[in-house]
């Protein structure tokens, strides 16, 4: 499983659709997906079904697609003062994201690791760290504790 932190990246757009496009562009450049369109479509489809917001400033967009090469856990924190203002109608201050992208055939090890990660995330203190934590704290959560 590929774990990535994008800390205050220089994304030009902070609209939901454009942010998703920026993310898939980045993943394509890193050779982690086959097709930007396919992956963006899968993420947007999930978003159309119901909100993926899991805390006041944190969303967890996710998708499963044949266009994903390997399991990806991607954490993004926008620059100070930057927010995606249209993630949903009611939530206008999302500045952190946990993207979970799963290939059509996902290994059991990855599924187990994701399961552990989400169980860990369900603890209040862990969720708070993802909402407010510094880069080192997020790194520790993703690499050390979530496994």
């Amino acid at each position, binding site marked *: 499983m590929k774990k990535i932190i994008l800390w205050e990246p220089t994304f030009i757009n902070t609209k939901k659709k454009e942010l998703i496009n920026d993310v898939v562009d980045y993943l394509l450049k890193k050779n982690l997906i086959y097709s930007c369109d396919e992956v963006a479509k899968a993420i947007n489809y999930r978003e159309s079904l119901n909100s993926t917001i899991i805390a006041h400033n944190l969303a967890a967009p996710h998708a499963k697609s044949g266009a994903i090469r390997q399991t990806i856990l991607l954490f993004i924190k926008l620059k100070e003062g930057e927010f995606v203002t249209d993630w949903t109608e009611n939530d206008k201050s999302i500045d952190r994201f946990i993207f979970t992208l799963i290939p059509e055939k996902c290994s059991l090890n990855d599924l187990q690791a994701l*399961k552990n990660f989400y169980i860990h995330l369900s603890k209040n203190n862990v969720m708070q760290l993802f909402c407010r934590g510094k880069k080192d704290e997020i790194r520790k959560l993703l690499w050390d504790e979530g496994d």
Partner: protein
Amino acid sequence: MITEYNKKTLIKYFLNHRGFISGFELSAYLGVSTKTISRTIKKINEKSMDSPIIESKRGKGYRLNYQNYMSKEGIIENNNSNELTSVERRNEIVKQLLISSPQKQNINSVFGRFYISESLVSVDLRILRRMLLRYHLKLKRSNGYIWIEGEEVNIRKTITDLLVTDDVTSVNYFLQTNQQIQKQDASFVTRQINLIENSMKTEIPYPYNVNLFSHIYILIERYHNAGSLISDDYKLKPSEGKGVERDPHFLSICKKIIDNLNIYLNFKLPCVETYYLYQYLSSSRVLDEQVDIKEISDKLKHVTLFLMKEVSRNPKYQNLKGKSLFINLANHIKPMLKRLENNIKVKNSLLEQIILEYPELFRTVKRATLNVSNEFHLKKINDEEVGFLTVYFAQSLENLRPPINILIVCTTGFGTAQLLKAKIKKRFSELNIVNLVASHDLNDVLDSNPEVNLVVSTINIENVSPVPILVVSAMFTMEDQRLLEKKVDSIRKEMMI
């Protein structure tokens, strides 16, 4: 004890959890008894009598009324109740007098440290006199001195009741630094209990360990403070020695402990102490000691079966039967019969919570125990024991309740579904999560799992099966939890019909 720390921690816990929380959960979180929880909640609510900050509901527990809390927040935060209440003051005084009885104490030195008026001293003495009478003890006052007179057995019983409050749920309680007991003596007693457990190759569980601890601890304090004054009539009566020879292993353990006490106290304890220790030990239930159904005595068998029959007379509980219930009850009743015989009481710190959770069952068991006492000519079985017995029936009742099976759905069967699973598991422990599924697999999974009662989904899906679907957000907000609680209630009602 109600402390500011307890109050604040409790409020904080409520703020982080929604819906009803059982007293058991709160008691485990704070590390105090359920009675203390209920007293703390009462204290919190005193600040807002007309609109309670914490609401309680029978069978469900407690929950924070957020609106009322917000309007009274300042009052709660600034509250300070560290002063000793009159009940606590009187407890302090009576403990001091009991431990040193029959020694006389100067009334000014006893009451002086509390800085209270003469009239309040008189009120305290009147209340204490009345309280001690219940234990067949007398509070005497003469020439500026006060003291307590009465039989040693009654003095110790009174001290036990004062020492072992409902807060005590383990021996470790006595070893905490904020407890007003002699640390050196407490640690000696703990070593003796370990020795007993090692000799018996088993563990003595709550409440029997607490009972044993208080018995030995009070014995030490009595001989430390008034050893030479303990009356000569504190001797073994002819009727009391009977039955001691029934278990030579128990007897040898008791002798060993009394030998250790003789050395520790530098005093030769009377033989009656071995007998009383034996009574406590034989009236305790030890963890590995299970009743062998083939070797069970006729009396134990008849008492247990009679109790089960009496409880099942209530149509609601007519299905409470079976071998495992019988064995659980017999395991409790066996030492309970000895306790009744020896006048030994056990504390049940969960009593209030048991009554709150299972009011009708408790009443039914209580009525049944009255009939048991009449039928078998036993002493009255007190509420603490009834509480323990109720738990075994309740356990059996819970096993009869079918679980509610749920499926959790999202697009992938991972992601938010996994997060939701962890949250539901934490807050709705009674739900059985059958599986996590991707939305496109839902119909197939429902076909192969006909036991599923409810689908909880983080996405909107078309409902093509008769199984209800509840859509919640990935955040699993308070509102989502309320909806799930409501849905589960209605499914359970349908199942009962």
